[in-house]
């Protein structure tokens, strides 16, 4: 009781201020987005995915070439080839000149329209056979591909119109023995073929306005195909874009639908619990047990593809029917977990209805998992479509898809690799992008990882 006067005590201001937050409060999604942004790989993938989608939707506007149009003057041309062509008259059947020649020679200029050869009868020949080679004939006497046989010496001329491309060919005429088999006597000629086109073809391809604009003897550039052409002369870029539409349509829409179905089914099953849950999950297990690829094929032939249809819808339906259980299982598992959480209990005590619980609390909390699943199902669907197209059980011709284009490209892998590389590359990039995006999403959304800083 020493003398501390009451006046020496001044009332302090209240020091109870709430804890200040050092940064704004983040919702689950905002937090996830920030995490995603810091994952560089995922960002790049997201960028790629968005570009692909934009390309698919806007591409045809920017490059409006008809993917089915066949430019038969430019078959299997790799990108970047020289495009100059000479305009010549329409093809007319060859009038074989009278008289004989001394040796194997060209009867006319060699163009991509035709190469006309004449020769003198070889010594000891009972007939002749004409060969064409891409390479000079060496001592092994590999003459190349046989193009025509004549079993007597009355025909000493030949017109080649088979798949002529600008470049150099080596033609050989080989003497035939009496039994019609090729012998050892031969003559070879090197021929340089020029690319040509006709007035009608130029008009049809849209290279000139009308027939009046060009004449025989002019030079022009044949149509540009930035990524080359395929085996029927169709523009690769246009086909890839249409193929993108098909592959991505199946790859994105199918997973969307069956994941959605799975969410609904799983949510109902998980929420209902008990017997209903058991029965529903048992049914889902049955569907899972069906061998997937086998049934895809079965469904495909069961639905059949009508004339002119593309085969996209049967594939879509088959995928949806077979693939929804996985998501259902996942969602149901999540719901079962969430049901036990405290805040659900609390919500119920506060009088929340079932629908409120499902839509406000449970489903949003499963969305992370669902989103990740979706991102992984997309590449799987794209692969499945490509796989089925490879064995001929995919989309029907002439609808292009990256899978069927790869399948066709494999056949000419060694000579014209661009027909395989472009679609296969696109499949790979898309699949990779979605996979990495899925990884990133999982890292960003997975609650467990959130706890381990």
């Amino acid at each position, binding site marked *: 009781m020493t003398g501390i006067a009451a006046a020496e005590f001044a009332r302090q201001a209240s020091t109870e201020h709430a804890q200040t937050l050092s940064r704004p409060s983040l919702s689950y999604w905002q937090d996830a987005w920030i995490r995603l942004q810091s994952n560089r790989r995922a960002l790049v993938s997201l960028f790629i995915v968005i570009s692909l989608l934009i390309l698919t939707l806007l591409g045809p506007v920017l490059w409006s070439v008809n993917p089915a149009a066949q430019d038969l003057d430019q078959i299997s041309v790799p990108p970047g080839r020289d495009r100059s062509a000479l305009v010549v008259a329409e093809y007319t059947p060859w009038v074989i000149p009278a008289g004989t020649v001394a040796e194997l020679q060209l009867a006319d200029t060699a163009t991509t329209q035709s190469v006309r050869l004449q020769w003198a009868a070889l010594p000891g020949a009972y007939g002749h056979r004409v060969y064409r080679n891409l390479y000079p004939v060496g001592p*092994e006497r590999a003459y190349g591909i046989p193009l025509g046989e004549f079993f007597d010496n009355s025909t000493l001329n030949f017109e080649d119109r088979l798949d002529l491309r600008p470049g150099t060919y080596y033609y050989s005429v080989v003497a035939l023995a009496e039994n019609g088999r090729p012998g050892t006597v031969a003559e070879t000629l090197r021929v340089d073929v020029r690319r040509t086109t006709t007035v009608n073809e130029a008009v049809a391809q849209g290279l000139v306005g009308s027939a009046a604009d060009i004449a025989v003897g002019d030079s022009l550039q044949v149509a540009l195909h930035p990524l080359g052409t395929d085996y029927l*002369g169709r523009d690769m870029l246009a086909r890839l874009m249409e193929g993108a539409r098909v592959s991505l349509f199946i790859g994105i829409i199918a997973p969307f639908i069956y994941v959605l179905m799975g969410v609904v089914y799983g949510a109902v099953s998980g929420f209902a619990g008990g017997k209903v849950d058991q029965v529903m999950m048992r049914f889902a297990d049955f569907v899972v047990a069906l061998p997937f690829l086998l049934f895809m094929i079965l469904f495909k032939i069961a639905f059949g593809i009508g004339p002119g249809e593309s085969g996209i819808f049967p594939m879509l339906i088959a995928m949806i029917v077979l693939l929804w259980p996985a998501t259902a299982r996942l969602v149901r598992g999540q719901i079962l977990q969430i049901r036990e959480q405290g805040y659900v209990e609390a919500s119920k005590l506060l009088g929340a209805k079932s629908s409120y619980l499902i839509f406000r609390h449970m489903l949003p909390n499963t969305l992370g998992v669902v989103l990740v699943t979706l991102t992984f199902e997309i590449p799987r669907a794209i692969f499945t479509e490509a796989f089925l197209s490879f064995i001929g059980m995919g989309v029907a*011709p002439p609808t292009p898809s990256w899978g069927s284009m790869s399948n066709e490209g494999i056949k000419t892998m060694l000579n014209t690799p661009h027909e395989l590389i472009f679609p296969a590359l696109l499949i790979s990039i898309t699949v990779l992008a979605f996979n990495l995006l899925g990884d990133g999403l999982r890292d960003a959304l997975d609650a467990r990882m959130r706890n381990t800083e």
Partner: protein
Amino acid sequence: MIENGTPIADRNDNFTRSAGKQLAVYALYAVVTLAVVVYLLAIAAGQTGSNGADMGINVANNSITIALREEPPQLDTGRSTDGASIIVLSHAFEGLIAYDEEAQLTPGVAERWEIRTDGATFWLREDARWSDGQPVTAHDFEFAWKRAIDPATASEYSFIFYSIKNAEAINTGRLPKETLGVRAVNDRLLEVEFEQATPYFDKLVAFVTYFPVREDFYESTDGRYGADADELLYNGPYMITEWVHSASMIWKKNPYYWNDKRGFLDEIRVAYITADTNAKLNLFKDGQIADTHLESPMLPSAMAARWQIDRAMDGTVFFVVFNHRPGRVTDNLNLRKAMLYAQDPVELVNKALKDAAFLPAASLFPVWVGGVKEKFREEYPAPKHQMDLEKARHHLELAKQELGLAAIPPLVLLVDAQPVSQLAATYYQELYRQRLGLEIRIDSQIFKQRLAKMTAGDFDITVAGWSPDYDDALTYGEFFASWNLQNRGRYASADMDADVRIAQTSLDQKERMDAFGRIQQLVHDDVTMIPMYERGWSFVVDPRLKGFRRRSVGPEIDYNYAYIDVSSD
């Protein structure tokens, strides 16, 4: 507090290093276990697999290794219909008459024969034997033919016997099979009675359905005849000693075969049965098989490898078949003419299909089939065809007027899953769209479903091919007869039917060929079909194998005259 004085980073490195070592140890264990497992699996695989693989040409053993495109469903001569079976059967069996190296008829089991208006007689040779040493007798032929014609056997090739007396009646169930007009007079004499005169009977008899079957052996197989290598008896140059289904076969030289002018190899190993042409190409590159055919994408590689490439006609003619049923738009002649003049088979083959061995078709009859004395197409040239867009459009307008349509409705092009057919279909679709403004919808079906649709008439146009059953123009000429079940477009013309009847029954070769000439012209004028191409194969053969042939009639590939010769030219 820093423990032990070592910084944390170092400790982590330590951890990594020792963990890494542990991992390496585990990896070693894994590799060893893997090797053991692989070894065990390999033993298991050896039990299941084919032991056919060998070098393509094995000079020491006088044997070659080849690949077949598909597995023969069964090797019952009375019931086989597909190409793979015919290849195998043509090496393991021999009929009364056979083909020689140059595809001419030559004596087989029969050393001579006589064909008359009312029938035929065959004298069998003494030294023809089965692979168990027993002689081949006329009874074997009688039994085989009666069995094949019996409706209970359900042979799809029974129609090839219809020139024999009562054959058709037996096949449709009206008469018992014993009444078939064939009789084994004794072990070496076979008498045949005709239903109507069949001057080309000798060519028919060379077909596999006419090959012999021995009755006692057949009964002993108890319904499994033709299902496995040991359920068959062979009388050809080779015997099948091993058959692992869908995997491999081994053919060994038949010691009881009479003809030393055929069957020079000691062994033919069919080590691969695969339809994948890339796999076959790779096998050939590797020297694992003796020959392979080349598809057009493979030609550049073949040229780069400096192989000797050969080609041969396959005999099959491909054409666009129209649906001639009443009510169908394609029944209209002007529409068909429009479609005919808008296209050119030369462009189809040269620009779209790009196969060096294909020949643009000009007629129902191929270039190689025989006529009176020379080739049929030399004596009766095919009608000339020239693409003419103006004419085509003119006919299209006429068609629209006749049909009373402002525009032709979309046409359904039925096609099977073969890559070449698909290619042709895609080509035609764009061609008709661009040149005539016609919309063509492609209906792609697997083989059986396509057949079902064709038979039901559920198509407008389709791509079809026909391979010859025997070496006579009739096999092509009768295709569009109104009674022919193969004529699935249901084309019917009294003139055509009359000419086919003449060709079937006339004994005068000139008269028959004249009839074919008229048929050829009619097909063009009436646009019964649009000719596409005559199929051929580019192929490569190991240069050490000589005498290998590809046939237009008979087996697609023929090793009966093949032998190994290592001396280089």
